[in-house]
């Protein structure tokens, strides 16, 4: 028995050696004429097929360059990105999160400045989106990739059934919710279990119309007002009014539950992001969309339309020229159309015209272009989350505890301000 065990051990060690050598083989280097493969990493693992289709168009135009899309799970993306860039094994093209997330990568010296390499960023993209991946003095380090819009989805069938119209003011909205509830419908697919939905798709979606939208956001960043300003208390109290229309035991409803409830037609409305359009199309649901209701008729709507992700160029890339060609193509209207159609609900923040084929996507972005609409972004994403305790982390906790009834609106905003006071105003 002993000898056969020794043999088994030997075999296993040989196996491991074989595995190791299989791994150790170097990638075939490109000899003149062979394809250059650019590694492109992202945090959207659901986009593999779509990105491959989009990027195939690039290879059609530039046959010597192939794009390898290697996404990483969203929650581990930042760590994987930072460690791979630091140790020199990062991808050539990297997705950058907005504001401080991407800025960190630039500050650490991992990515190129793109002002000269991709010259049309400044001219062809919206000012807000360019600024999202630029320093205060205008040094651009990221190509804006797409922007998201948040608003209210509704189930078309339910609205048709009760002959409901899209509400324009808050009172109309509440009345609509009430009538749905009286008819026994589940009004809103919402819960408070997962924090990020409470800020990204609730507070900063319907809240801006009550806390003063973009102007207030800028004032907060500049330190002109504090988070304890009555405007924010007002916004908090407004969203609390919606809680009576959440399903029972909403404290345990998480993001996936909300999404699936709406997709399965189990709720009439869902305050969420435009990015859900892809899932909605796959589910075959008939939907409509309206922007956040204003306080009173005639008010300007504060519409959350913000650049979410951008693309950066790894300084350690071995194929700089090819990567620059790719980024230039990404910054073109041709790519914008491809993106908007493959990923419905994601909007390349370009000033230049590009096509959108999905009618609902078109509707969503056209609201942003109305004369009585201002676009705004997430409250805490710019500058206010540069350090811990970040504005976003504080806000996440505050909104959750507020909606669950643990804290009052006053306690919530005071908590956030107290955290900001420890570092932001120096």
């Amino acid at each position: 028995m002993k000898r056969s065990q020794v043999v088994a051990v030997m075999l296993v060690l040989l196996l491991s050696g074989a595995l190791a050598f299989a791994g150790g083989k170097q990638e075939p280097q490109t000899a003149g004429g062979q394809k250059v493969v650019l590694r492109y990493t992202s945090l959207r693992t659901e986009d593999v097929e779509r990105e491959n289709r989009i990027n195939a168009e690039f290879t059609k135009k530039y046959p010597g360059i192939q794009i390898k899309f290697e996404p990483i799970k969203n929650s581990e993306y930042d760590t994987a990105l930072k460690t791979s860039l630091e140790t020199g094994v990062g991808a050539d093209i990297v997705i950058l999160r907005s504001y401080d997330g991407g800025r960190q990568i630039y500050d650490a010296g991992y990515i190129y400045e793109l002002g000269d390499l991709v010259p049309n960023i400044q001219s062809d993209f919206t000012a807000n989106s360019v600024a999202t991946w630029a320093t205060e003095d205008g040094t651009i380090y990221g190509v804006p990739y797409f922007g998201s819009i948040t608003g209210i989805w509704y189930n078309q069938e339910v609205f048709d059934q009760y002959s409901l119209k899209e509400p324009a003011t808050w009172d109309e909205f509440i009345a609509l919710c009430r009538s749905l509830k009286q008819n026994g419908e589940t009004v809103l697919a919402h819960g408070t279990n997962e924090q990020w939905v409470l800020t990204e798709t609730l507070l900063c979606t319907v809240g801006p119309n009550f806390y003063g939208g973009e102007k207030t956001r800028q004032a907060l960043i500049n330190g002109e007002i504090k988070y304890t300003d009555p405007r924010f208390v007002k916004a908090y109290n407004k969203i609390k009014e919606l809680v009576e229309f959440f399903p029972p035991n909403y404290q345990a409803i998480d993001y996936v539950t909300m999404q699936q409830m709406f997709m399965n037609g189990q709720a009439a409305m869902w305050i969420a992001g435009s990015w859900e359009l892809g899932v909605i199309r796959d589910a075959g649901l008939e939907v409509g969309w309206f922007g956040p209701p204003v306080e009173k008729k005639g008010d300007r709507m504060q519409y959350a339309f913000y650049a979410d992700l951008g693309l950066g160029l790894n300084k350690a890339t071995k194929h700089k020229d090819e990567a620059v060609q790719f980024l230039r193509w990404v910054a073109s209207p041709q790519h914008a159309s491809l993106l908007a159609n493959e990923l419905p609900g994601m909007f390349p923040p370009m000033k230049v015209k590009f096509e959108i084929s999905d009618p609902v996507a078109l509707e969503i972005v056209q609201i942003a272009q109305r004369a009585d609409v201002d676009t705004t972004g997430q409250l805490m994403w710019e500058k206010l989350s540069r350090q811990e305790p970040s504005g976003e982390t504080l806000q996440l906790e505050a909104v959750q505890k507020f909606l669950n009834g643990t804290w009052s609106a006053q306690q919530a905003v005071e908590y956030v301000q107290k955290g900001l006071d420890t570092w932001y105003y120096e």
Partner: protein
Amino acid sequence: MRGAAKRVSLRGLLYLVLGAQSLVVLFPLWLMFNSSLKASRQIFRDPFGLPNPVFWKNYLKLFVQQSYERYFLNSIGVSVVSLLLIVVVTSLAAYAIGKYRFRGNQQIFFYFLIGLMLPIRLGTINIMQMFIRVNLYNNLLSLIAIYTAMGIPAGILIFTGFIREIPDELRDSARIDGYGETGIFLRIIVPLLTPAIVVVAVYNLIPIWNDFWFPLILINRDELMTVPLATARLFGKHETDYGLLFAILSAAAIPPIALFVTLSRYFIKGLTAGAIKG
């Protein structure tokens, strides 16, 4: 009469408890397997009903679209080699610590235990750099090295505990019989440690098999990925195919269970009793 009735009622209680636990274990397992045969949306529309239609596509996708047999091989290779190394290396060290008095014995024991108290993830960037420097990035040997190191503390703790239970008389009488130290170890100690070997192997198997962090950090080539790393790619930021996910996670549970069933055959009671008596 009373004795027999008592035995029957105790036996009844035994089956009752075991039966209840079986149900508690089986229901979530059934739910997992049931969901793996559904299309993603049906999982949420009708979580506890039977699949309708039965969505074999989830399992087919594993091997056609995703080439999971490669990932399974990688995971199995890494796990088996790591476990072997852990068992060999820690049983040797634990024997030294548990059975021999020497200066620094306690200190070395505690040194090994420190590994249980520190989060290995803290060393992520240094570990990554170390392997890159010796050209072991994108090489499964790096995983084997890390997993072996991670398994050592618990291995030492467990083996030392079991080894200390082995009476010294056995070793002394073997010495009188003329056996050298290695002979004693292989012929007397190891057979008595069989249950402990199974425990150490099984205890380490699960975290190694399911680990996705170190493959994430040390591997980016598709053909070298392990099962958990490949599976992580299925989690979308906003959209996830849950049916496929369940299928993969159900399939991924089979190798560890198979290993456990195989190893637990060595849990034979008679083995130990005989040796002590002799």
